[in-house]
């Protein structure tokens, strides 16, 4: 039972200028849970995509049960017995449980060896037997979309089991689960261990890792920072390996925050922002940190009650939030930009109501605004007529910021604004946010990069399963402290 099922050795993968994985190896043993941890961008996702056949490594080998394998796509990896359960489950919502489990590999009736129609009886039998192994009984006819997330996840695991997977890869499986669902999942993982399946488990929750892991590999900046066995590691060792044990330089360089500009007096866990303040929101995936931003920007059905500079204001749509002086940079760039329009139109997008609807725009003034912002934000190339879809990710993000600066907003809400953009653009966006705050603006940003929050913010609030956790500022604000506060359960 204790033999290596999957071995990846010397895996190197480069995306353009970024080295995603640098000579990474991992051994996964049958009947064991191998946890994979690391901060965002450490290379976890790239590694599991390579193991799952989505990406091809530039260098390195993958051995499955001792045999060297090359996967040309996810289909081959699945056929070889490597199943991945991503955060976004790959199920067809309108199809039934049984159909989803059989998807792509339907049992068919045969007549003289000629394949005929889908054998529904066998399809249901197989689904029922597999789900019995998971201790999950349900009406197999109901469409998957009617199941809660936890049960949909079980269907996905069942689908993997039905195809005799040897390696099961779970990417942050508990992020969207309730407590009792997590207990059930862990129970199932224990059964699968007993059946000899090798499990790769990605998580940010350090408590989960400590209770589950037979082995733990820590990735940092695309390299293996530590590998250890059960009993050999504890929380602080993992945290140190993840962050590199760097002392975090907290630099209170910005002017001290001034008077309160935005508050939510009717909520016990409301946000309160002051002018000149850079406030961060830290939390794991599924913690609900971006929901705080959406609430303040009134994107949901429920109106938001706030006080802006002491004046009670009811926000029932983003239109009102913008009118009240707020701007939001959403987590997906496609939600911040009109992709088929020019850089100029996108920058002016939020300022259209500055002129009456049926009056000609002041083209000369618009031109000056756009030119100045291209210069200030170093948006390249400096071509306002270019379609915004032609720009790089970092420059697109700057155009979104320029859109709000053109409107001269007082409050910026940002959802992971530097995710997936290059280091230089990241630094420029940081400098810009600092400058925005120094001129009396207020910034609330969520980030999955804890180092970014520590370097940039005066105050960081941690969010845990939808609730406000601790509040850290001054010398109490450290990356390691944050990591413990958000992942420590």
């Amino acid at each position, binding site marked *: 039972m204790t033999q290596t099922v999957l071995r990846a050795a010397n895996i190197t993968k480069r995306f353009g200028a970024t080295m995603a994985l640098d000579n990474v190896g991992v051994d996964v043993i049958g009947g064991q849970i191998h946890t994979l941890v690391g901060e965002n961008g450490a290379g976890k996702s790239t590694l599991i995509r390579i193991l799952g056949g989505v990406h091809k490594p530039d260098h390195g080998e993958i051995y499955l049960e001792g045999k060297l394998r090359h996967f040309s796509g996810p289909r081959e990896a699945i056929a070889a017995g490597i199943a991945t359960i991503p955060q976004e489950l790959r199920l067809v919502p309108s199809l039934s449980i049984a159909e989803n489990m059989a998807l792509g590999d339907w049992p068919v009736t045969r007549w003289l060896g000629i394949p005929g129609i889908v054998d529904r009886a066998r399809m249901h039998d197989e689904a029922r037997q597999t789900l019995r192994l998971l201790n999950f009984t349900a009406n197999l006819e109901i469409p998957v979309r009617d199941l809660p997330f936890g049960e949909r996840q079980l269907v996905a695991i069942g689908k993997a089991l039905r195809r005799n997977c040897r390696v099961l890869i779970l990417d942050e499986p508990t992020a969207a689960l309730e407590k009792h669902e997590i207990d059930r999942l862990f129970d199932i993982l224990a059964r699968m261990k007993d059946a000899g399946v090798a499990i790769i488990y990605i998580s940010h929750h350090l408590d989960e890792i400590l209770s589950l892991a037979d082995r733990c590999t820590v990735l940092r900046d695309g390299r293996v920072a530590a590998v250890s066995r059960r009993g050999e590691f504890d929380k602080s060792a993992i945290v140190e390996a993840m962050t590199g044990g760097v002392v975090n330089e907290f630099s209170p360089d910005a002017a001290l925050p001034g008077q309160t500009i935005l508050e939510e007096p009717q909520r016990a866990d409301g946000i309160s922002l002051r002018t000149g303040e850079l406030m961060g929101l830290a939390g794991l995936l599924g913690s609900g940190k971006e929901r705080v931003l959406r609430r303040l920007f009134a994107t949901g059905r429920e109106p938001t009650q706030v006080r802006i500079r002491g004046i009670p204001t009811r926000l029932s749509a983003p239109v009102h939030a913008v009118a009240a002086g707020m701007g939001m940079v959403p987590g997906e760039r496609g939600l911040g930009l009109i992709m088929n*329009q020019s850089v100029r139109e996108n920058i002016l997008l939020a300022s*259209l109501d500055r002129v009456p609807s049926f009056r000609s725009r002041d083209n000369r003034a618009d031109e000056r605004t756009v030119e100045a912002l291209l210069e200030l934000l170093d948006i390249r190339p400096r071509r306002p007529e270019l379609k915004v879809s032609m720009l790089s990710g970092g420059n697109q993000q700057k155009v979104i910021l320029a859109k709000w600066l053109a409107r001269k907003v007082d409050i910026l809400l940002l959802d992971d604004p530097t995710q997936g953009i290059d280091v230089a653009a990241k630094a420029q966006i940081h400098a810009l946010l600092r400058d925005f705050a120094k001129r009396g603006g207020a910034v609330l940003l969520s980030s999955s990069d804890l180092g970014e929050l520590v370097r940039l913010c005066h105050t960081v609030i941690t969010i845990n399963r939808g609730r406000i956790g601790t509040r850290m500022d001054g010398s109490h604000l450290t990356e390691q402290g944050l990591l413990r506060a958000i992942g420590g359960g």
Partner: protein
Amino acid sequence: MKFKAATNGFELRGLMPLATLAVLCVVTAVATDHFLSPLNLSNILVQSSIMTVVALGMTFVIVGGGFDLSVGSTVALSGCIATLVMMKAGLGLGIAAGLAAGALVGLINGVIIAILGVNAFIATLGTMVLVRGVVFLITGGAPVGDEGLPRAFVAFGSQRFLGIHYLVWVPAILLAVLSWIMQNTPHGRRIYAVGGGREASYLSGIPVERVIAWTYVWCGGLAGIAGVMLAARLQSGQPTAGEFYELTAIAAVILGGAALHGGEGALYKSVIGVFIMVVLGNSLNLLNVDSYWQRVAVGIVIIAAAAVDRLRWRR
């Protein structure tokens, strides 16, 4: 350098409709004797005029990311209402009533689609049938007018001003004014923004529902103008008028280079699209192509335009 090449390519593709029209004209002029005769050219202009007005309205809706199947019925409704009111209350009130009827249908479409969130195809399919029913109810299925129409109205449908038909002046003036609104005013830019990215516009503080509702009001109102023009030309309000106008208008807008998913297109390009359709029909007529075959040809052109649209967006 890479960027330059890409934009040039785009501009070239933007010239496709105009090039198509030019080739069509040259081929027809060479192949037939009468294409360039003043009478024929004037015919083409008059034939295009009413469809152009409908297509201008359709452009607002399609650029805004929508769709309107009800314009054909609206053309009939406003033509019949205009002639009915005209015979009782005079020319001015009649025209106003016709336009108001069109704008009202547009407003109803806008509310159903933008505020209630009903799919545009289904909503306007519903109003298309409903409005046609209303037209038959108020007219009893018989044409309105003939004798009792004001003389000025009949003259408007057939006379010329500065050598050009009044019917042609209407779309020309509308094109100039509406293009200015579309390109230079915040109202017009909001329509492009909402069509190009509804969610992003919403998150940029644009009142998305109101902008979408406005596009249907434009479309209905312009269909109303087209209805009045058609009644003047036919010297009566015809309850069966305007059938298949919606399909021709949509085809013309797409032929002109607008994207069916919104955010792209321009009024003048849609006018080019209308001319492609009309010149094609004219050319097939002059070439004595059987009218059944003409339908086949028009169908092929519409599919080809849609296929070009797909290929364009695949890159």
